[in-house]
């Protein structure tokens, strides 16, 4: 445990740390563009300079090993001069077009410019022009004028996602980040992480492009339901105080974007592209009216009808949802498990062409809470549960059940959130809330529990499964 001194303060460093790591771990900030805790050291941006006391020059902290008794200064006059100079070099050919840049408001370059340069341009030369809009992939655009060639994105595709999709072409001040010509970036299911790690506005999400200024948005912590990894994410949506009243109020309850919520226990700082596209899952047309045999009824009527069916059943089977939260699954178990033979259902199967699993994050089971459901209701065979032929009532909770395979004479109670043809075929259909409309927890394949919070209010005509089970149980036991 070498002891080093940062700005005169003693710091206990780890033996293999760099000055950058030791400083950040002990509350000293050193600015950086190219350095990233999960990537190899590139040492190319040169903003992280520090001065070893007694030396008349500066060195980069990201590549400086700690040694016993090392004295470094992170804010000496020489360091400040070089930081300012580095910012001037970096902005020399950067367009500083923050006004039309999606990154504004969460841009490292913007922050550092205020903190370390803050002066008008010292150059009168015309800026080097480069591609302003380059299609890096179907999902990502690249503004080469904003790019500072830190190579984070390149290193990500080589070291983390291992697609080797990106590289730097040409040389000197006309160097360009480019995807390989056989376009493997489109095949990289982790590609969008390069947007997050880009310290400037060079790499931007096409679906999010010019959709919102980030300061109008707020992140709500959530869990990606795309597979059993259960990566923690931030779901970004419009802040209440910036609610739109006239212009497209739909945007107030829409997911603007999804980004990773750093979590060393589950996903580190990354998520896959499926997690970015949760709007495609959650914003499908919703079922918001209860029905009996396809005819709209009020929610209490449907609940009463369901109770009656449960009461009358002799051999009742329940297919519980692997998208249910821990709280919902526990409520089902407490309220209704005694009345049903219970199977765990896989609500979602892998989509055509979807990566099944890999060594980074993606797991084969495409449901978020199978682990909890199995812990409560036991292992069920892989694939569709075999519902016994003498079953006279099936409670189907969630998606992924082929009604055609249920015993023909069995009555069906269907709890579903989305507008689907099966809804009308159920004897009783009850619309339920989705993850973004409630709080809860999922337990991932490795037993790690992560929580999600509510982003939007549910409609009053939609039930919360957790309360619904209690209601079904109360009526079932109290009624004569």
């Amino acid at each position, binding site marked *: 445990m070498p002891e080093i001194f940062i700005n005169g303060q003693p710091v206990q460093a780890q033996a293999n740390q760099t000055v950058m790591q030791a400083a950040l771990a002990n509350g000293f900030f050193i600015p950086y563009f190219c350095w990233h805790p999960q990537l190899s050291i590139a040492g*190319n941006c040169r903003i992280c300079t520090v001065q070893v006391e007694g030396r008349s020059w500066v060195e980069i902290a990201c*590549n400086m090993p700690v040694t016993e008794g090392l004295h470094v200064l992170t804010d000496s006059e020489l360091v400040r001069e070089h930081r300012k100079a580095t910012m001037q*070099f970096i902005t020399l050919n950067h367009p500083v077009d923050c006004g039309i840049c999606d990154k504004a408001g969460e841009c490292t370059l913007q922050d550092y410019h205020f903190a370390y340069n803050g002066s008008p341009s010292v150059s009168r030369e015309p800026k080097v022009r480069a591609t302003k809009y380059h299609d890096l992939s179907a999902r990502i655009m690249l503004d080469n004028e904003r790019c500072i*060639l830190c190579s984070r994105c390149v290193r990500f595709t080589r070291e983390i996602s291992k697609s080797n999709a990106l590289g730097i072409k040409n040389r000197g001040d006309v160097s360009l980040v480019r995807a390989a010509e056989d376009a493997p970036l489109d095949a990289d299911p982790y590609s969008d992480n390069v947007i997050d790690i880009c310290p400037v506005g060079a790499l931007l999400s096409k679906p999010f492009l010019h959709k919102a200024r980030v300061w109008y948005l707020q992140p709500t912590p959530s869990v990606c339901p795309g597979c059993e990894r259960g990566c923690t994410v931030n779901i970004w949506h419009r802040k209440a105080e910036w609610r739109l009243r006239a212009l497209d109020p739909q945007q107030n309850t829409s997911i603007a974007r999804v980004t990773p919520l750093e979590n060393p226990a589950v996903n580190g700082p990354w998520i896959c592209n499926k997690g970015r596209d949760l709007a495609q899952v959650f914003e499908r047309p919703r079922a918001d009216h209860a029905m009996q045999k396809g005819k709209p009824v009020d929610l209490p009527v449907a609940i009463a009808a369901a109770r009656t069916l449960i009461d009358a059943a002799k051999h009742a089977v329940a297919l519980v949802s692997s998208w249910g939260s821990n709280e919902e699954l526990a409520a089902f178990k407490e309220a209704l498990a005694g009345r049903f033979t219970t199977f765990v259902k896989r609500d979602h199967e892998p989509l055509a062409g979807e990566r099944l699993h890999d060594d980074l994050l993606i797991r084969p089971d495409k449901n978020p809470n199978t682990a909890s459901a199995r812990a409560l209701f036991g292992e069920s065979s892989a694939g569709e549960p075999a519902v016994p032929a003498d079953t006279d009532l099936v409670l189907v909770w969630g998606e992924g059940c082929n009604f055609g395979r249920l015993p023909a004479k069995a009555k069906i109670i269907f709890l579903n959130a989305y507008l689907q043809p099966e809804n009308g075929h159920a004897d009783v259909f009850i619309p339920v809330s989705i993850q973004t409309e409630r709080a809860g927890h999922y337990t991932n394949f490795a037993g790690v529990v992560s929580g999600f919070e509510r982003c939007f209010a549910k409609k009053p005509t939609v039930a919360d499964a957790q309360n619904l089970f209690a209601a079904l149980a109360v009526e079932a036991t109290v009624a004569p």
Partner: protein
Amino acid sequence: MPGKQLLMTFPVTATSHTLADYVARDGYATLRRALTTMKPEDVTREVTASGLLGHGGAAFPAGRKWGVVHLNDHQPHYLCANADEGEPGTFKDRWILEHAPHLLLESMLLASYALQVRNAFVYIRGEFDLPYRRLAAAVEEAYAAGHFGERIMGTEFACDVVIYRGAGSYVCGEASGLLSSIEGKRGYPRNRPPRLTVQGLFKRPTVVNNVETLANITGIIAHGADAYKKVGTAKCPGTQLVSISGHIAKPGVYEVEYGYPMARFLHEDCGGMLPGMKLKCLVPGGISTKVLTAAEVEPLTFDHQSFAAAGSSLGSGGMIAVAEGTCMVRLLQVMLRFYHHESCGQCTPCREGMGWMHRIIDRIVAGEGRPEDIDSLYRISRLQDGMTICGMGDAAGYATIGILNKYRGEFEHWIRDKRSLLAGNLEGAVHA
């Protein structure tokens, strides 16, 4: 002859580069003696004791570089001869490659023996044609004679050599950029630490030595460190190949003993300036060293201490003699265009700074200069110094500051009058 000669010891003929001629000059006898009578560490000890300096430009003691490599550490070691001679004004390694390729190969074998290297490389710049063909032919001759491959000279020692051709990149002459290139990648230089002698080619301990540095090894092992130290000065043992060009009567490659008087070298050995021309200044060691005026350079002796005291460096030994009447603004423009063209673009100060300086000087030459441009060139040079991954930021700064310090008036004139004091002439002026 500018002093004693250690490398240019034989008359160049149509066959002097061949194995037969080299063997007739006792070639490969030193290797045989070393393999049979010396231990690897003895070879390194002799090289260290000789005080041999690196001849690529930085003059780092070769023995100290070798000393970092741990023997018997159960991992491959690599040796690379740096023949990527690209510093403008430098063409001295070419002489060795064209005329003494076997001297280089024997020296590389000795170095490989000392450093426990199984695979050695020669990285040669891609534009070199004759030097490559001569070296490639020498390698084939040496293989045919059993000097490479398994059981060299009947001993356990085995070594292979590959000639690796560059493809047009100045930065690959920097040792770590060179290794990136041998790895089959862009020639991006690497940050230190780690040193290349700890983690070099494919992360294995690697010694990169300049061709001329290596070429001296055979002589040192043949005659001993003491004999080597008798040549040159106490602090600068041996000789250095100088390639001199420009407005000089007899341009070419000369082997100069350290301590030799510069005035005599320039005006007698090199035949003085071209007819009717007078020396204005000398670029002493490739364009990345600070220029010295005639008055500054003529009293010097040819050694590192003397040139350092004068505020410059011998660098790679690439001297360019510049005649009176030459426009230093245009000269610096040519230099800055070169640095801009060759910046690899990896790190910020060089990628942005080189283009910035180039655009400023282009603007001055176009008659659109501003008084503050001179300060900008100074400031950019100073802020690049020591701030780049390789030495290129420093190099461009030395070239710029060297010329600005001594010829500021020519810049002020062009900025003020919107034209050159010397008609933009680069070819020197003939005086009656």
